[in-house]
């Protein structure tokens, strides 16, 4: 119970918000809009899962927003060229993985600090894409939306798919050795290396995986509408890092679990619709987001202080 205090407190905060909404704005719970909200949140969840792994490994990746935009546009262009859907999905994941590998090579291979490497790649891909696309939407062919399913089935597919991914990854992190490697590398890379874990290879893999998840998320996003906006993904890195941190993953690595990230993401994703339903002006959104992040960080600090005192 104590061990999971952080994650439970986030879940608690989320619970309080949901109760407030139930009392003051029950219209929040109408099924169709809620499903649409969940479908949109599933996209961010997939990226947040990857980011959680990156941060647990004591790195960071702020280029996910730009990678997302590039993958979305590539996937859209492949689809517009009438590639079969399965191929488009695989291609998008591969494109993401390649970009992730580039980040990984620089961070793990050359030992460069991940915040600066991903800052550089973020700016480069973002500007490059803007130059090439000049804001033009990509029109998707018919039958692409919702994977060709009906809207409800498509949305449920996205939601269930992302939760299944969450389950899989949570189990993998707990039971597979790669999971333990990641925690080890995040806690202390040198000790990990001495224990026979390859820290650089693990780090490289994490970035590749992050890229692949971004590619997957891009597909999940573009099937939700008939056009691809090259600006999509703007601000994604901020949203996702905030969700991961609010969810209890420590920025100094080695600690945290994916369920907390799930709760953190839901909490942050609900702020904007909650403001609308509670008739609060839109310009409070950023301030509230900032306060939530700070509260989470303070809670994290208090927790680690307590652990230090007791341990």
């Amino acid at each position, binding site marked *: 119970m104590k061990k999971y205090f952080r994650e439970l407190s986030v879940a608690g905060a989320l619970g309080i918000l949901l109760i407030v909404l139930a009392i003051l704005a029950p219209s929040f719970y109408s099924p169709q809009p809620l499903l649409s909200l969940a479908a949109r949140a599933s996209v961010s969840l997939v990226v947040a899962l990857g980011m959680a792994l990156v941060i647990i490994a004591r790195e*960071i990746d702020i280029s996910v927003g730009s990678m997302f935009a590039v993958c979305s546009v590539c996937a859209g262009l492949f689809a517009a060229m009438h590639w079969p859907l399965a191929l488009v999905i695989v291609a998008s994941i591969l494109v993401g993985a390649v970009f992730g590998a580039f980040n990984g090579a*620089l961070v793990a291979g*050359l*030992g*460069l*600090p991940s*915040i*600066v*490497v991903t*800052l*550089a*790649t*973020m*700016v*480069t891909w*973002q*500007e*490059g894409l*803007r*130059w090439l696309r000049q804001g033009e939407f990509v029109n998707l062919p018919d039958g692409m939306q919702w994977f060709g399913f009906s809207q409800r089935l498509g949305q449920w597919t996205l939601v269930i798919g992302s939760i299944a991914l969450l389950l899989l990854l949570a189990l993998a992190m707990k039971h597979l050795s790669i999971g333990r490697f990641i925690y080890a590398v995040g806690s202390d890379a040198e000790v990990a290396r001495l224990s026979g874990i390859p820290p650089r290879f693990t780090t490289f893999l994490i970035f590749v995986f992050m890229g692949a998840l971004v590619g997957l998320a891009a597909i999940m996003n573009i099937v939700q509408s008939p056009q691809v906006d090259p600006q999509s993904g703007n601000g994604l890195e*901020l949203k996702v*890092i*905030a969700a991961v*941190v609010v969810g209890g993953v*420590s*920025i*100094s690595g080695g600690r945290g679990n994916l369920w907390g990230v799930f709760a953190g993401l839901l909490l942050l994703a609900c702020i904007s619709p909650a403001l609308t339903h509670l008739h609060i*002006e*839109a*310009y*409070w*959104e*950023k*301030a*509230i*987001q*900032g*306060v939530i*992040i*700070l509260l989470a*960080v*303070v809670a*994290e*600090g*208090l927790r*680690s*202080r307590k652990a230090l005192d007791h341990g």
Partner: protein
Amino acid sequence: MNAKQPTWKKNLFRHEAILLVVLIAEWIFFDVIGRNFGTYDNSCDILRHSCEIGLLALAMTPIILTGGIDLSVGSLLGLCAILFGKFWRDAHLPIPVAALCTLGVGALAGGLNAALITRLRLPPLIVTLGTFSLFRGLAEAITRGVDTFTNFPNSFLFLGQERWLGIPAQAPIFIGAVIFFWLLVHQTTFGRTFRALGFAPEGVRFAGVPVERRIAMTYVLAGIISAIAAIIYTARLGQAKADAGNGYELYAITAVVLGGTSIFGGTGSVHGTLLGVAAIAVLQSGIVHALQPSEMAGMLTGALLILALTSSVLPKMISGLRARKSALKLSKPIA
């Protein structure tokens, strides 16, 4: 590099020296390729455009040297800009008083960061990520997103737009800040602890240095500098809006890292930061004068950053490879 190498050769291969060469090469390149690039007017403009970012980068240098980071400086610039406008327009304070109040706000905001980071021992990256949202959010909430402050008196706008004794009016402030930070970081014992803090904070603590106070000071200083930058920005633009300074923090971090300061702390210099700011500013101006799209400036900056990082790592890698090669040679059986 062994100690027997002459000093000039050692200096030549330092990061800052290479960056200086790159900067000069950039300048000459754009002078040749671009139209009217190398003129005095344009040089003044380059200075004017990079003044605020330069200030933020200068303030960021001690923070990064100690191993911290501050993502909130750009948002704080926006918040200070609108508060400055509000003090002047709605509270009817004269400009100098409004400016002083703004500096106070900057110090307070920096103090918030400092308190969370040093008192509660929270990681700077996330604290400043939170204040990054919070400050911008406050700016948007105070102005309800729509309010903007204009029609400042000409005597104020002079600061951002005109020339004083032939140089841009904000230049003396910037030069003053450069001298201040250079002295602080490189010449005072105070400042020398910054680098030590980046290397080994515990060691510094054992040496009896008040670690928390030093680190707190860097963040408060950053807050005050953000406020100064906000005032200059408002004078330059003639307008204060909630989205002022959007994206400036990343720009500042890029300049600092480009200048050779390690993001982990411990190594770096103020003159390196200055060169980093100059390199990016020259690039941006040069791209426009060379009639190339501005996106190119962004892409080249990203590429330049990666090259700079790689080049700082390369000597270590090469010597590492060399060491391994000689170790292999030694370990070969003789017969």
